[in-house]
């Protein structure tokens, strides 16, 4: 049984996009579409989650993701409490489930969890009472489902359909929970060609088994693409033996206007942020006409509203 779904097939937790049925993905995207105009009204709120308490549990620092979850919850009229646990009781040695139990005793209705360890959100989801929902806001290298969903929402907004697209994911797929969530969503939604492009040292072994085509040459991989998704190259990867230098990486795998010209003329460029300008992406591309990086941030609010609304409904 899928731990993310109720017995009658509704969303119970959002932990990963792996194994989530296409109908649920579409339902989330359609619901997000309905939330798009809330931010433009005189009263930027709907009363759906009035009286619910949502706890942002961030065991790992994040500004954008935490902020967009907070805005999304507030637009749904929920009460939001932010906990940056790296700097609070965890440093005093409190176990993760003790933290969760204490917050549940404060009548939490939903936990938004970001953690450096893969599986942390699943672990909490298995532990909480039946009326509490858990949303994974990124766990280790495993999954970042709301980022994957907002990327799908962005693609659908600009391209309309999924069934006729070629999508390339470029960069450090090995360490990227975002890439994993994107690949699961793209294949579930019927994208016929998903490519991953990167140096051998930054692609997981056996990644082909996820249904993607592998390219180590960026020029070849970008040819004919409708969507180019750049991944953040984490600086700490430079310290190991994985990469020679940022300059060297940019030369082969940085997205420059010249390389982008190999994709389709109307190709869009996406990035989950935060960007390393001059490492994985040239500023001219990041700020150029094909970039949809800032719209991604805006759409992230509507998508997170949709996820929270679908989770919180029908639980009384």
């Amino acid at each position, binding site marked *: 049984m899928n731990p993310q779904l109720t017995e009658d097939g509704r969303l119970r937790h959002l932990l990963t996009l792996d194994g989530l049925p296409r109908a649920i993905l579409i339902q989330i995207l*359609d619901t997000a579409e309905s939330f798009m105009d*809330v931010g433009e009204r005189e009263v930027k709120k*709907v*009363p*759906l989650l009035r009286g619910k308490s949502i706890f942002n549990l961030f065991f790992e620092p994040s500004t954008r993701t935490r902020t967009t979850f907070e805005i999304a919850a507030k637009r749904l009229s929920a009460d939001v409490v932010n906990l940056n646990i790296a700097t609070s009781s965890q440093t005093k040695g409190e176990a993760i489930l003790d933290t969760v139990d204490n917050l549940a005793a404060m009548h939490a209705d939903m936990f938004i969890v970001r953690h450096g360890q893969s599986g942390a959100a699943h672990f909490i989801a298995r532990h909480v009472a039946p009326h509490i929902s858990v949303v994974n806001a990124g766990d280790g290298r495993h999954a970042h489902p709301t980022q994957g969903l907002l990327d799908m929402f962005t693609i659908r907004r600009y391209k309309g359909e999924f069934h006729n697209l070629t999508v390339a994911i470029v960069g450090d797929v090995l360490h990227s929970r975002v890439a994993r969530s994107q690949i699961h969503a793209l294949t579930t939604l019927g994208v016929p060609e998903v490519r991953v492009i990167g140096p051998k040292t930054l692609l997981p072994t056996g990644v082909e088994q996820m249904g993607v085509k592998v390219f180590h040459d960026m020029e070849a991989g970008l040819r004919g693409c409708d969507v180019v998704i750049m991944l953040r190259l984490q600086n700490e990867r430079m310290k190991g033996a994985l990469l020679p230098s940022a300059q060297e990486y940019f030369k082969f795998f940085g997205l420059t206007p010249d390389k982008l010209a190999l994709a389709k003329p109307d190709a869009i460029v996406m990035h989950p942020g935060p960007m390393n300008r001059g490492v994985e992406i040239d500023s001219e591309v990041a700020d150029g006409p094909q970039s949809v990086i800032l719209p991604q941030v805006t759409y992230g609010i509507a998508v997170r509203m949709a996820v929270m609304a679908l989770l919180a409904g029908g639980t*009384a």
Partner: protein
Amino acid sequence: MHASLPDANTLIARLADAIAPSLAPDTLIVGIHTGGAWVAERLHAMLQCSMPLGTLDISFYRDDFSRIGLHPQVKPSSLPFDLEDRVILLVDDVLHTGRTVRAAMNELFDYGRPASIRLAVLVDRGGHELPIRPDFAGLVLDVPEHQNINLSRLDDGHLTFSIA
């Protein structure tokens, strides 16, 4: 069977006739998804309104959200005008408990403060649970609580009522 249930088109014409004498030219017509939007579309044409038509999906304002969750097919609301200080004619197909109308009014106020709201429904079927009554009704009918009255739209655009 309700042999007395008239044709939906006849009811819409009757409703339009009732509304017309008191209709200010700059009234904003707003239909509630889905049936109310169909009726509003027809009234908007018959009454020759110059303002664009508005539609509301009240899914985000329902009072039974925490019990039954989100409606599976939420449509975006579309209010292509500023409703501050304007006269609004809110349109629905069937008035039953009044909870949908309450939700619709709550949503309207999140877009601005209208001067007034009037309510037009094709059928007022009784069973009100809130102090909400229509200003215009095509038909007042006492439908037993266990029965449902539904407006549907055929492929050719024809509207038809059924009771089940």
